[in-house]
């Protein structure tokens, strides 16, 4: 059974509708990539899944439990964690405090401070430093670590590579192997199509708030079909 089932999801910002009936399923342990042009609704979908876009309709089921009408804090406790676009670290807190914030909901699981420091050793060296004074890549590590500390059943990553040097992005994606080894199910939003294909098992393309293409096996992607779905030809 799918870990997350999204059915006919619609999301609104006031009068403006941003998602028009998106249906997707995430299988246990897989990495699912969302691609699409700017404004296609990828970030809205992520934010709607964790309840940050409150005005939403349809169904979001986590292990069968309906979350469409639940608050962000309840969704966090139910086990969906978001690594938000732009990292959104806590400016007055240290690296370690930022990580500890992730454990607010006290879910049990393999991810604790030791495990995060094992994944990103540089964070251990800098754990007393204010998180926002570090480099972009290190901040992204804190953001990922903070989300993992919640021991979610599903990890959402929104544009991890935004504003980072390619070599740093590679380092960050290298850590995914370890995260996947713990059995984590993930949905990632990624602008870099090649990277999205490389790290994911399946993928979908969004355009104007709708799914325009589903790829069931990223080892066999029809680039022409993807291009059409991406640009809407």
């Amino acid at each position: 059974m799918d870990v997350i089932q999204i059915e006919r999801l619609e999301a609104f910002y006031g009068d403006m509708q941003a998602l028009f009936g998106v249906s997707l399923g995430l299988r246990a342990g897989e990495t699912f990539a969302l691609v699409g042009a700017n404004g296609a609704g990828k970030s809205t979908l992520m934010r709607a899944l964790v309840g940050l876009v409150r005005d939403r309709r349809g169904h979001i089921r986590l292990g069968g439990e309906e979350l469409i009408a639940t608050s962000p804090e309840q969704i966090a406790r139910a086990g969906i964690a978001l690594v938000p676009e732009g990292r959104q670290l806590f400016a007055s807190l240290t690296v370690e405090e930022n990580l500890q914030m992730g454990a607010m909901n006290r879910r049990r699981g393999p991810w604790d401070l030791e495990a995060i420091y094992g994944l990103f050793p540089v964070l251990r060296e800098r754990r007393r430093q204010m998180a926002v004074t570090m480099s972009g890549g290190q901040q992204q590590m804190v953001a990922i670590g903070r989300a993992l500390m919640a021991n979610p059943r599903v990890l959402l990553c929104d544009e991890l590579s935004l504003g980072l040097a390619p070599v740093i992005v590679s380092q960050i994606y290298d850590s995914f192997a370890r995260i996947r080894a713990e059995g984590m199910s993930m949905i990632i939003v990624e602008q870099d199509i090649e990277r999205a294909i490389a790290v994911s098992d399946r993928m979908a393309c969004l355009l104007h708030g709708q799914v325009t293409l589903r790829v069931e096996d990223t080892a066999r992607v029809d680039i022409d079909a993807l291009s059409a779905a991406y640009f809407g030809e």
Partner: protein
Amino acid sequence: MILRILTLLLAALVIGCAPLLLDDGQLSLGMEMLVTFVICAMWNVLAGYGGLVSLGHQAWFGIGGYAVFIASNALNVNPLWLLPLAALVPALIALVLTPLLFRLKDAYFAIGSWVLAEVFYILVQRSDALGGITGMPLFTGGMLGASIYAQVFWVAGGLALAVLVLSYLVLRSGFGLGLMSVRDNEVAAASIGVNVRRNRRLVYAVSAAGVGLAGAVYLIPNYFIQPGIAFSADWTVIMTFVVVIGGIGTLEGPILGTLIYFAIRQGVTDGLGLSGSWYLVALGALAVATMLMAPKGLWPILRDRLHLDWLSVRRPWPGRPDRAPHHQAPAE
């Protein structure tokens, strides 16, 4: 830690013995300093840690005072025994009003809280039962006897120490961390499971309760309460200026700010012989200068220069999994 406890014991000793050495005038001034510290510390918890800038905190000062005056007169009970009401009534009113007040954000919240304070002020002014604009006496004031200044000084001292210790403990707890995370980044805090609204309501109510207590303690030895004084916007002016000068978002800031405030007030009024509100002009000028030159306030500068770290709330994580078992994931 031992240093902190020793300082605290010393402070308690000084407050305990002070009435043996000081006359009533000095005790009254001392009580005023302690009360000022309390209201500034409570405003700082709300603004500096909770990120909620209230410009209407005089409302809780007045409500706390009126609650004790009304109850003491009606029940004919020593007003000091009724002080819990000065915390309870403001806290309850705050909890009832927050769903409305929290619809306003940032600057709108600041103005909204001010409007709310004015509403309470006008309501009390218009109430004949409460003596209207002239106010009402505390008929039970005589119960305190001749040592009233010493008693009120002790209560204010106990309150000040309690506020300091409790703020320190709470801010070092997981709740404190959650509070600061909401101030830093509301969206990120919500997305990792912090109940933003509940945290804010709680800290707002606690802040109102502390200010209400301080208001009652300050007003009791006057034997008289007047809306113009109890609900004076000056209280909030003092809170903001003291906290901005001392250092917003630090526990030591309000202590330093309060000392500076009284130094300026006594210096301008007694030293220079300038009467009226000139000391507030001086305080405002210092606040503006601080905002321009040291936006974090004076304590952080002093701390870094002298390498002091007395009441910093940087903490080892106290999170215990037994705290909230119902939040744990079902076995998978």
